[in-house]
């Protein structure tokens, strides 16, 4: 491959609020946290598990005997987090620790607010610092402090608190909501980069598989039939046929066009794979399989490296393509 500009890449952030139902054991634990109380569950061997487990780890028996434990505990091991990442309880250097609360037999993982690694040690006594407004979430324990830390110690910077799950007044907590937000550097392949850059100049660039000679647009990098790199570039016209289509009548969040409208598989003249796009410029009930269409490009000053540059496809008025000419693309 010849030297060329590096593949296009962009930061990509994905986000989703995971809403999880809790069941009787974790529900009771979270309800306790919302009331600034920590409850463990007693196992079949009498050991107290904090956080509670739903089933005994040895006998698999469902567990339901709850016991309140202390809000002070002992550090069993710790590690130093010099560069916290987003979402961690404390947003300046802090210690992670496994903490055995008084009255518990297992340890809870949480953050401890100390300024330096020298200020924490295994065996140290720590106590809970509650969130200002507990909602029934593990983050209701904002973090731990050395047991002897003064009450008026200024708080560290923290991550935003989780949202409160809906519940009726006085009802127990049966759901937790945890926002998950992840950042990536999203990169497209060299072939896709050439395709997208060409779109930015109003051109449609596909690639031909050297083996089966099929033309792919967008280009794939590897032929999905033969698994070999697709190397030969082919410039395609912006005329096409509709192979198949649907009429969208359902409104949804973020919809940009008022229903009804047509989403169709568009097969460019000379291409062997269809892509999804909009058909407009006629009533939805006039769109047909085999209909001839042409790209309607947005004004040149709006072009970016995206298929968005084509606003939609419109009927050309030419006779429909015969069914046999596209049947194998359905």
């Amino acid at each position: 491959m010849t030297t060329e500009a590096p593949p296009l890449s962009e930061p990509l952030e994905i986000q989703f609020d995971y809403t999880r139902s809790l069941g009787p054991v974790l529900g009771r634990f979270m309800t306790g946290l919302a009331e600034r109380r920590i409850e463990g569950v007693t196992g079949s061997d009498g050991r107290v598990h904090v956080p509670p487990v739903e089933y005994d780890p040895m006998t698999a028996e469902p567990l339901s005997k709850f016991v309140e434990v202390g809000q002070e505990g002992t550090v069993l091991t710790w590690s130093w987090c010099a560069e916290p990442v987003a979402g961690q309880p404390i947003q300046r250097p802090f210690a992670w620790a496994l903490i055995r609360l008084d009255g518990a037999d297992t340890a809870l993982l949480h953050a401890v607010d100390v300024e330096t690694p020298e200020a924490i040690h295994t065996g140290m006594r720590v106590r809970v610092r509650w969130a200002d407004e507990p909602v029934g979430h593990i983050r209701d324990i904002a973090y731990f402090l050395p047991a002897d830390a003064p009450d008026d110690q200024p708080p560290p910077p923290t991550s935003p608190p989780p949202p409160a799950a809906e519940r009726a007044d006085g009802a127990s907590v049966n759901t937790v909501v945890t926002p998950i937000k992840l950042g990536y550097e999203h990169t497209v392949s060299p072939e896709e980069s050439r395709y997208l850059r060409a779109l930015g100049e109003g051109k449609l660039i596909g690639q031909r598989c050297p083996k089966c000679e099929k033309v792919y647009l967008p280009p794939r990098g590897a032929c999905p039939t033969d698994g070999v790199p697709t190397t030969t570039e082919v410039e395609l016209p912006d005329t096409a046929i509709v192979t198949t289509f649907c009429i969208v009548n359902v409104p949804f969040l973020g919809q940009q066009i008022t229903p009804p409208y047509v989403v169709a598989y568009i097969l460019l003249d000379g291409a062997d794979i269809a892509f999804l796009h909009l058909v407009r410029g006629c009533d939805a009930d006039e769109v047909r399989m085999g209909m001839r269409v042409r790209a309607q490009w947005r004004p040149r000053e709006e072009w970016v490296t995206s298929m968005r540059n084509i606003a939609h496809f419109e009927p050309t008025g030419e006779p429909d393509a015969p069914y046999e000419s596209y049947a194998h693309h359905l």
Partner: protein
Amino acid sequence: MSRVSVVGFAQSDCVRRTPGTTNGVEMLVPTLAEAFKQTGLSKSDIGFWCSGSSDYLAGRAFSFISAVDAIGAFPPINESHVEMDAAWALYEAWVKIRIGEVDTALVYGFGKSSAGTLRRVLSLQTDPYTVAPLWPDSISIAALQARLGLESGRWSEKDMAEVAARSLADARENPQAQRSGESSVADLLDASMTADPLRAHDIAPITDGASVVILAAEDRARDIVSRPAAITGIEHRVDSPVLGARDLTRSPSTETAGAALDVKDIDVAELHAPFTHQELILRDALGLDDAVRISPSGGVLAGNPMFAAGLSRIGEAARRVMSGDADRALAHATSGPALQQNLVAVMEAQS
């Protein structure tokens, strides 16, 4: 039931950052070609395909579907995927051959670990109710485990540095390694802490990469290579996800997986230990003494492509059997925080 042999292994270079996509196609196409060249097989010879990768790592849904482009999946192929290290995809393929459904299988794994913040993404492997909402990063969790061993006297910082020094020295012979070099234990111990008690040398690098292993039923294997690596046993086990409820200085799941196999008279063991102290835990769990050559490839401290590195351990161990450097080799793969889940395979020269 037929025994199953490894007949081919190829891997991409281990690199800090590839310019490729998160669906791995660019890393997989040449790696698959290399595996086919080694074995003389082609796509139509493969009865079953199985891959390991993660959408969380890729930051997109169904990234493994795009990866299928790299193998050429038309006409339709017999294919499966695990959202785990591809060592577990190999286990699925092993079962397919054992039950006689197919007699060849190709297993691949890929990961572009550099696309996101790896240690943060991996925190989502933990319990989603009481742990993951705190975003405990993978390095901090491993550091909690390391300290437990240090303070209980099960290992020392020097033991850990020795693992790093040996791994990086061995990696000089591995052209696909990301890190290699000669370093003295004393120099390593002079370095400052990255995540107290872990130093940079204790932590596997962030690696993009892919690997491929080809399996065949024993009766087909000898037609493909002269000295197939027959899998005499493969077992996997899991420990409790509750980090505060298990003894993190041991790996009971590795112990029980190993106990179900014959792990005596091993020449070479490739261990999947992303942190130096985890190699010490694994050697202990598997009863590997000083006579066993540990991770001659340099192991994952020399390059740790997520979701492919465990499969690569099986491939590296098999390669040494196939080349005649070893008669019996052990491979180990891990998944999850603090060695939560472990797979152990034993291979020997097919007689």
